[in-house]
């Protein structure tokens, strides 16, 4: 658990600037207000009531990717994303209540007109969070629709009809890079128990697999491969049926009650599994699960259960590297590079496990991605909300990817995966560079070696 609450930690910032050299937005603009130190000051001034809520600060804070690179660099453990979130919640509350304009406070009153999210958009958003993401059955229905959209010719129809031009440019591009959805027949529930592949050996441990919500619909193949990889590296794998969404997206949108509800459901589901570790393959989800403890600060009964739960969370690359036994692998003689997931490297603190695993593959050459410390700009729906900055971040990332001259770009989180595909699409390099989740890359390498062995 974090030692300090966001309110406490914002007071401990001594403005040393240690966060300056890791911030992706500051790296693009050089403007202090686009860096973590500036953000803490702005949020803090607003939260302590020194200055009124205003549009200028809202716009500035909205530019933060919440990637947590700054927290990792901070010697005082100032929780910048949490502080920014807290300020954004306050802005949202003030906007709803119409109290953002404090009369009598002399500062900048030229921007006191905070724009409300239009009502229809709000209800769509609420519906997504309340009904779709929180309920795997409903999400699966959406998956079926998407699959139908792709397979029925509707996708090519909408593309040729040009209906998509009514959507913002960002969404049009996203539509193009959407991964191929598996048909419903291949998206049946996972086996509740998958034993280790080699029964002659002692198990490396009993683990539970966290399947995620979107991950299990849009990236079903990666999820199947994750269970396979765990089994092949010596683990007995349980996939609890009644698990649900991690709640990260709800949390980031300030829906704390729903987040807590989802957290409790997951804690219960995984307690029943009786495992040593709980494994995720998405840095974003893993980070949210690790932070469950912070949700129950004031709830002693659940706090203890959350502590046990969070202490068991491991990323799949981490557990395979540390406790697993990778069978024989074989590459294709290609060069690969790796863009880390921010939540994986900065919140879960898994910095090089994926790279260490990839480096063990014979006939694969690993090349480090320059400036891999910087977020790719995906950050949830950031690229839809802040297209201009997100594109600049992405273009710079692609520049670095080109420098490595790699054939495969490895990722460790679905958001990063989509963003990298988007970047390569924009550059017209999809044909030359393939994007792959590290799990898929490892399983393919294992299966290649198995074939070669026969």
């Amino acid at each position, binding site marked *: 658990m974090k030692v300090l609450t966001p309110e*406490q930690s914002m*007071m*401990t910032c*001594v*403005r*040393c*600037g*240690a*966060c*300056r*050299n890791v911030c992706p937005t500051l790296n693009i*603009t*050089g*403007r*202090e*207000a686009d860096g973590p*130190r*500036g953000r803490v*000051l*702005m949020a803090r*001034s607003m939260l302590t009531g*020194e*200055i009124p809520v205003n549009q*200028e*600060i809202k716009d*500035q804070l909205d530019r933060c990717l919440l990637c947590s690179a700054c927290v990792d*660099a901070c*010697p*005082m453990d100032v929780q910048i994303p949490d502080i920014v979130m807290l300020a954004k919640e306050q802005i949202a509350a003030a906007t709803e209540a119409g109290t953002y304009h404090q009369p009598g406070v002399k*500062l*900048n009153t030229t921007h006191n007109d905070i724009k409300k999210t239009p009502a229809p958009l709000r209800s769509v958003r609420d519906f997504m969070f309340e009904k779709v993401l929180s309920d795997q059955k409903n999400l699966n229905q959406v998956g079926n629709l998407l699959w139908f959209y792709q397979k029925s010719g509707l996708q090519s129809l909408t593309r040729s009809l040009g209906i998509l031009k009514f959507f913002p440019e960002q969404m049009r591009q996203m539509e193009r890079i959407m991964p191929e959805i598996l048909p419903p027949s291949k998206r049946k529930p996972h086996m509740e128990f998958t034993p280790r592949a080699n029964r002659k050996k002692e198990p490396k441990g009993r683990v539970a697999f966290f399947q995620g919500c979107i991950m299990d619909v849009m990236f079903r193949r990666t999820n199947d491969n994750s269970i396979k990889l765990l089994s092949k590296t010596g683990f007995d794998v349980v996939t609890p049926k009644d698990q649900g969404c991690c709640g990260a997206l709800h949390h980031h949108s300030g829906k704390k009650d729903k987040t807590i509800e989802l957290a409790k459901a997951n804690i219960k589901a995984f307690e029943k599994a009786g495992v040593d570790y709980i494994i995720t393959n998405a840095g974003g989800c893993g980070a949210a699960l690790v932070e469950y403890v912070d949700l129950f600060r004031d709830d002693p009964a659940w706090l203890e259960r959350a502590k046990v739960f969070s202490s068991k969370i491991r990323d799949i690359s981490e557990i395979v590297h540390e406790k697993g036994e990778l069978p024989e692998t074989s590459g294709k003689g290609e060069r690969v590079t790796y863009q880390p997931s921010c939540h994986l490297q900065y919140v879960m603190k898994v910095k090089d496990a994926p790279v260490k695993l990839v480096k063990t593959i014979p006939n694969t050459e690993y090349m480090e991605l320059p400036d891999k410390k910087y977020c790719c700009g995906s950050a949830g729906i950031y690229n839809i909300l802040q297209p201009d900055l997100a594109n600049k971040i992405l273009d710079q990332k692609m520049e670095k990817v080109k420098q490595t001259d790699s054939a495969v770009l490895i990722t460790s989180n679905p958001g990063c995966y989509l963003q990298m595909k988007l970047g390569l699409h924009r550059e017209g390099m999809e044909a030359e560079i393939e994007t792959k989740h590290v799990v898929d890359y490892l399983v393919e390498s294992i299966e290649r070696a198995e074939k070669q062995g026969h």
Partner: protein
Amino acid sequence: MNETIERAPLDEKVISRLREIFGVERLLTSQTDMMTYSYDASFETQLNPQKPQVAVIALSTHEVSECVKLANEYKVPLYPRGAATGQTGGAVSTKGGIMLDLSRMNRILEIDHQNMQAIIEPGVIQNDLNLALKPYGLQFPPDPGSANMCTIGGMVSNNSSGLRAVKYGVTRHYVLGMEVVLPTGDVIVTGGAKSKALKSVSGYDLAHLMIGSEGTLGIVTRLRLKLLPLPVTRGIVLCSFERLESAGEAVNAVFSSGLQPSAIEIMDFNCIKAVNMMKPELNLPVDNEAVLVFEVDGAKEEVTSQVNRLKKVVEKYATHLKFSDEPNECEKLWQARKLVGAAVGLLKPGGFRVYAGEDICVPISRLPETLREIHNIAEKYGIVCGIYGHVGDGNMHTGPVVNSSNEVEMENVQKMVEEIHQLAIRMEGTTTAEHGVGIVRAKYMDVEHGPAMEVMRAIKRTLDPNNILNPGKMALPN
């Protein structure tokens, strides 16, 4: 606290000329932006943040020169700024005016490994340069604690150094030449305009007049830096002492045995306590007054032999001793020193560490005496404080920890800082060894320099007759 001084707005002509130079995106005028340009890492600017009237982000020497010409023409104060990681208010406005952000001028222009030098823009981060030099087996040695975030332009302007100064010296020793925009906007290159020589005694050494002038005489826009070979490996000896005096004796004994450690760091009993709180596994002995961390560097076999010799010399004085010449183990031991700056904050629950009175330097022989005196002063004001520093050159960093909501404490810590500075001068030392003067130590300049201060003021008047560049700092004329 947080008083806003009302100022007449900048002449609209100045703004529109700035827009011509920098374009709309790199000209910032909003109150939010001004707020974020109102501080550096100093305690002073936390208490009294000072907003500029406009901020610009420069990308080239030409832009800097045009901006300075404009400021000089309209007599508007101009404040050059790197990453604002300084602890003196040096990069903060005192009279409104223009904030000139140089952090985006951060290209490494040339690494000339054959001639052991690099040419860079001033916004390059120390650590970024060293990462780029590593493949060549070279290094830029000055290593302030803020190496991960401070710009080299800022290091040059403050003549910064760090823990390895005891062996490698300070920033000054690594500047061969520079391009400078003078307060009139004219651009000069010192250290030989076209030279790539590693030594030169031709003419007044203007580069060295600029180094440490804190942006009051000119703005550095390009630097030619001297590089050294990167040591292959290093070794650490960490030892504890019952009494401060025996730590002092141990340092003397090491020097007289002919050893040249690359760093000698001291931590007092409060720091020991704090580090133990942060990293219990380091398990430093708590009943001791001081811990010393020695670092040696060089080739593998050299380091092993130095570690062994060091061990033998200090053994006589120390109560506990740990050592290693193995990289991973060294990293663990070195953590004790690396973490101390942040760890002292733990000494007082809910408190935060204040950077004030943090940079005094006294003769090595008077260190134990000075340390005891600082603790007496802290006790008098009821302030918790950990002291650590570079014992090899007598440079002490005091870390008072206060509670920001406790007004008595906030007042007392400022009185305490004043006494620490006076103490440094009394001990034949200085109020600042590597952080600079800026706003916070301007009042000691006359005491420290006497009549020499008039020469400094005369130089300032000659180069900057309109007092445009970074006014209100270093007790130069207003």
